[in-house]
């Protein structure tokens, strides 16, 4: 009977196309928006994810997320280094500055100050220049997208100079970074140089980046730092989640994306559910004939569920494919807004379950008609 169910389904091409495209569009809408949402949430904490060497971030106790910095005294670094369980700790500066290009253009940029000795915090993917070049006076590293923003007509090159608060800086390296939440150029330089660029004087320590001794639980070490210094210390994972949750709670991002995802679900239920219901209603006489011929309700349920499952699977696969194509093409350019976005498997799995729920609901609503259909209607002319 399964083959008959499928033949009934594939025999009505117009409705089959309506069902498949309805489900595909719904899947595309939900997966694309959910993936974008996940991507944007990850961008809010991209600096933490990208800074892989430390596993503990130490900060002023009032800080709730990475972008809202309250500087600490420089002496806090030494206090953190003195906490048992800390293998090493380095300073990290995070600030903003207005950059002026040789052509006179102005561009607000992020300036990151890295420990002068270790340069911990520099992105790992250096596509031009070298790590050691940052030790030269006035040397900076800039992210690839930032370079293209400052010099839109030029190919990537070293030696370009800019002014940061009237101080000259020279591009000594170009790095590729995880896309940040705000699309401003990212400038990496030595800690001492960053303070000079930003003219902020003493006590401008944004974060202390620390690593626990191998074998020690980073969370326990972080708690130890807190109790001994009075500062806030979070593991990288804790800080990442805290930052993402801050943006979730305090911005319209979840509402905006949630609305579109909800729209996708509504489109799915409305278009797919109604079309499937129409398909079943139009075939009611056929189901009634099968019922009159002795097909049990259990097997009729099996037929309708199979039809719903096949429509759902094809539509879902098509929608997922379209989403993949979208991300594949939209993220290919290093300066694209969509750079770094991808389709997480968790989103694909979740939307798959949602598609199953949509088809199950459609099948349940339609099944009611099939189960209560009076087989005697087949005797009516």
């Amino acid at each position, binding site marked *: 009977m399964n083959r008959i169910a499928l033949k009934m389904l594939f025999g009505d091409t117009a409705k089959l196309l309506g069902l498949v495209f309805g489900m595909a569009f719904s899947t595309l809408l939900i997966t694309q928006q959910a993936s974008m949402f996940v991507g944007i949430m990850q961008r809010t904490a991209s600096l933490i994810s990208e800074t892989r060497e430390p596993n503990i971030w130490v900060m002023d106790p009032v800080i709730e997320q990475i972008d809202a910095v309250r500087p600490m005294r420089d002496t806090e670094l030494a206090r953190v280094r003195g906490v048992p369980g800390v293998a090493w700790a380095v300073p990290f500066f995070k600030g903003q500055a207005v950059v002026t290009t040789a052509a006179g253009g102005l561009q607000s940029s992020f300036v990151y100050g890295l420990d002068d000795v270790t340069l911990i915090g520099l992105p790992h993917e250096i596509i031009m220049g070298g790590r050691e070049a940052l030790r030269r006076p006035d040397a900076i590293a800039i992210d690839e997208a930032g370079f293209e923003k400052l010099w839109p007509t030029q190919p990537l090159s070293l030696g370009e100079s800019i002014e940061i608060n009237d101080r000259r800086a020279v591009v000594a390296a170009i790095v590729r970074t995880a896309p940040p939440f705000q699309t401003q150029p990212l400038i990496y330089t030595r800690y001492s140089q960053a303070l000079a660029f930003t003219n902020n004087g003493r006590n401008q320590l944004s974060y202390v980046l620390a690593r626990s001794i191998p074998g020690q639980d980073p969370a326990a070490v972080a708690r130890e730092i807190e109790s001994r210094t009075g500062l806030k210390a979070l593991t990288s994972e804790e800080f990442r989640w805290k930052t993402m949750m801050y943006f979730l709670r305090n911005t319209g991002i979840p509402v905006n994306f949630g609305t579109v995802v909800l729209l996708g679900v509504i489109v799915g239920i409305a278009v797919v559910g109604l079309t499937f219901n129409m398909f079943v209603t139009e075939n009611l006489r056929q189901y009634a004939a099968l019922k009159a*011929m*002795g*097909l*049990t309700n259990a097997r009729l349920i099996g037929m309708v569920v199979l039809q719903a499952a096949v429509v759902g699977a094809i539509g879902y696969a098509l929608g997922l494919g379209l989403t993949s194509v979208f991300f594949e093409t939209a993220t290919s350019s290093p300066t694209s807004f969509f750079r770094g976005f991808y389709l997480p498997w968790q989103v694909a799995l979740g939307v798959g379950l949602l598609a199953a729920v949509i088809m199950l609901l459609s099948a349940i609503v339609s099944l009611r008609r099939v189960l209560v259909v009076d*087989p005697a209607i087949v*005797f009516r*002319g």
Partner: protein
Amino acid sequence: MLTLAGPEPTADAAPAVAVRCSGIVKEFGAGETRVRVLHGIDLDIETGAMTYIVGPSGCGKTTLISVIAGILSAEAGEVEVFGQRLGVLSGGRLARFRAETIGFIFQQFNLLPALTAAENASVPLLVNGASESRASRRARDLLAAVGLEQHLDKFPAELSGGQQQRVAIARALVHEPRLVISDEPTASLDAHAGQGVMALLREHALSKDRAVIVVTHDNRIFHFADRIVRMSDGRIMGSELPPFTEAH
């Protein structure tokens, strides 16, 4: 109880009762709009005979065959089909009994439009759990027997009304049911096609241990009957022999 005389029994086998209806009452609606459609029907239908149920529209013919087939349940009375009381069967068992025992021919054919003639004819076997290959083989043989060997792989929309009804006959007989119930089998056909369909039905559906019930208005096919039961207002008014018994 009105017991209808069947055809003359042969010397070696007396006709058995295929269907026994005892005091069947069927009502539709509720409250003040409740209507009694069948008023205590008593009727025996014997094997080896083609029994027609005739009467004006709305007299309860279709309701009666729906009750006999176990598609509708009666408010009162008992239906036995080949000795099996339908009232004691649960939904699933009743469906299985119907699938094994009864073949249906409908006025509107009710063929599945997405299936070919051969696939349509094989449906009852598939409902009974036969393998697709066996069902297909048997359906093709039967379609060839009813003259459709050139049309096995055509869809219903590609067949004439008469050809569609032949497919419906093949479908009704493919699982060798002991009882065939046919509702206005010639209503959608012209006179010539109607005669051909009834001749086929008589030829293939009837045997000593089987029975055929035909509900019809079409007096042009009365001569194919072994007996004719007349109904009016939900009651059996009597039975008679067909007008031209030599046609058999």
